[in-house]
């Protein structure tokens, strides 16, 4: 993702070789991690409402590529989800 952005910016700087009109102007894809903001919700195996957002209907854990959770928080999430599964909460 990042590499693509850099290429994009370089091309935009050079006004001579402009991209075609049909290309989208702002090529930003990356979101910030929703769990490492200020006052972020607590990741805990009792907090089922939060954990439900990060699993599919079949009970699989959603990868951090899609949910854009940071590496550290994703590790915590998987551990707490597995605890909740043991207790039969999810």
């Amino acid at each position, binding site marked *: 993702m990042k590499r693509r952005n850099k290429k994009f910016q370089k091309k935009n700087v050079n006004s001579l070789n402009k991209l075609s009109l049909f290309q989208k102007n702002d090529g930003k894809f990356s979101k910030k991690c929703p769990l490492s903001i200020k006052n972020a919700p*607590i990741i*805990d*195996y*009792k*907090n*089922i409402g939060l954990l439900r957002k990060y699993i599919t209907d079949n*009970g699989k854990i959603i990868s951090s590529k899609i949910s854009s959770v940071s590496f550290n928080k994703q590790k915590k999430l998987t551990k707490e989800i597995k*605890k909740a*599964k*043991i*207790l*039969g*909460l*999810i």
Partner: protein
Amino acid sequence: MAFYENTIIAKQDLAEKDLKSLREKYDTLIKNSSGKVIKIEEWGLLNLANKIKNYKKGFYIHFKFEGNNKTLDEIEKKIQLDNSIIRFLTVKYKKLDIKNEYFNKEKTK
């Protein structure tokens, strides 16, 4: 000494008396084995996500306590022998947060 959380799932077909006695039993057990009970929560009758030992529902009881490895050993030994308990989980914590109650219906956080 460290902090622990222990949750127990009891069978759904227990009477209220049995639940009370179950709760008091583990309360006294922790106290007698050099532990200290900080809080007890009852989450009530909840639906299980998948069948556990052919049960679809269970009573959840949640203990927050302070203790050492001896208390843990004693509790887990007793739980595994107990017939009225389907499943249990103990988690170690550096800090316990007592304020948040996720299964309290009145607050509805």
